[in-house]
């Protein structure tokens, strides 16, 4: 069973529908006991970092998230859930969970040719091969919607990279049993489903 952490983030339904589509059992929950009992955990999110951190505190989810990651259980952050696992976000100048060293930065608009948010399909170049990319070609396109991006401080944590707004940013980051994608596999067609399938089989080792 995959627990999808519910902290009033936006894309819970689409993550659940995608997992159901590939026949993976899942439950949207904010119950620490259920999160602890799940085999795997997905940490989704769409919205603002500040509000997300406030919700996580209010619902008492920060410790369960840290414990899950420390336990070695496969843990996947998506979009906002990939950003707030870093140490700090420029969005609202807020301290984040700090599971991976680094910060979250805002795209600086160059001109009208480069819209913020980045919205649409962009290629992900695999920098360090990872089990969630099994069977997925290098430079495949995934669906993105974001105005901020992850800047991990250690190069070894960068799994995939993408170019936008004159920046080459980490579109997938990972460390041990933790994997996180800026893009939305749940909205990235069959290739995104393949990635979720890979996650549903992954043992958390790489």
């Amino acid at each position, binding site marked *: 069973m995959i627990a999808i952490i519910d902290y009033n983030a936006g894309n819970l339904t*689409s993550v659940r529908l995608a997992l159901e589509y590939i026949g993976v059992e899942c439950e949207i929950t904010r119950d620490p006991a259920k999160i602890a009992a799940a085999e795997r955990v997905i940490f989704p999110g769409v919205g*603002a970092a500040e509000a997300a951190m406030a919700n996580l505190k209010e619902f008492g989810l920060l410790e369960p998230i840290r414990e899950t990651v420390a336990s070695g259980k496969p843990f996947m952050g998506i979009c906002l859930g990939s950003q707030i696992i870093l140490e700090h976000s420029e969005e609202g100048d807020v301290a984040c969970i700090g599971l991976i060293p680094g910060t979250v930065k805002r795209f600086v608009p160059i001109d009208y040719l480069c819209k913020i*948010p980045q919205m*649409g399909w962009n290629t992900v170049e695999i920098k360090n091969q990872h089990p969630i990319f099994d069977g997925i070609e290098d430079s*495949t396109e995934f669906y993105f919607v974001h105005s901020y991006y992850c800047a991990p401080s250690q190069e070894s944590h960068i799994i995939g990279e993408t170019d936008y707004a004159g920046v080459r940013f980490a579109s997938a980051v990972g460390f041990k049993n933790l994997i996180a994608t800026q893009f939305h596999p*749940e909205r*990235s067609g069959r290739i995104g489903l393949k990635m979720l399938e890979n996650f549903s089989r992954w043992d958390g080792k790489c």
Partner: protein
Amino acid sequence: MLSKRIIPCLDVRNKKVTKGVKFQNNVELGDPVEMAVAYSDGGCDELVFYDITASAEGRPIDIEMVKEVARVIRIPFSVGGGIETLADMHRVLLAGAEKVSVNSLAVNNPTIISEGARAFGSQCIVLGMDPVRTGDPLFPSGYEITIRGFRERTGLDALEWALQAEELGVGEIVVNSVDADGTRSGFEIDLTNMIACSVGIPVIASGGAGTPKHLIEVFTRGQADAAIIASMIHTGEYTIRQIKDELVSAGVPIRKKW
């Protein structure tokens, strides 16, 4: 590099996809759920679903159909028609839509944009606008916003409205040319270019797509970030693969694998 998006539009009425010319004389074309699956499998980058008679009939959007579409496709899709309140937006997003599109509602009550953006994030609030060409000097852009499916003029200038909506927090703007709608004779390039180059958010061109060449024009000269297509694929004249092949040949950045 970020790809330009090709977005089929499903105008739904009485649970069937329909298409008219300049918002009139709609004919039935097929089942929305089947068409959504076919287009999604066929390589479209996103889908738009409008319940085109919800507002006129004074009823809420067909939420069961939204749920059914959300269950079967795995690409982003936005939904519009019959959205009146924040609660309506929330229902649509919970049903599995990625974005909510507001049009007449936003003209009558612009604060719904900022309220929606605050509650659900800018990225899921889409402004649909239906500008019509005018020679009246009261409209500096040369286009006036119409609402209720071209039935009512608003006195709003198209460019001013786009800038105001951006300020209020919409995530992207669909510019649907009333003059070009359903004509299949090409997008209104100047209109698209004017709005796309004036706002810092993505602009989706709509109305007039008839051939792949029209799409090449709207992505290059028009500077659109995405384009809506309808008749040209609903009739089976083109597949999304054919359209994308031509765009790739012309050097337009396009998603090639799906």
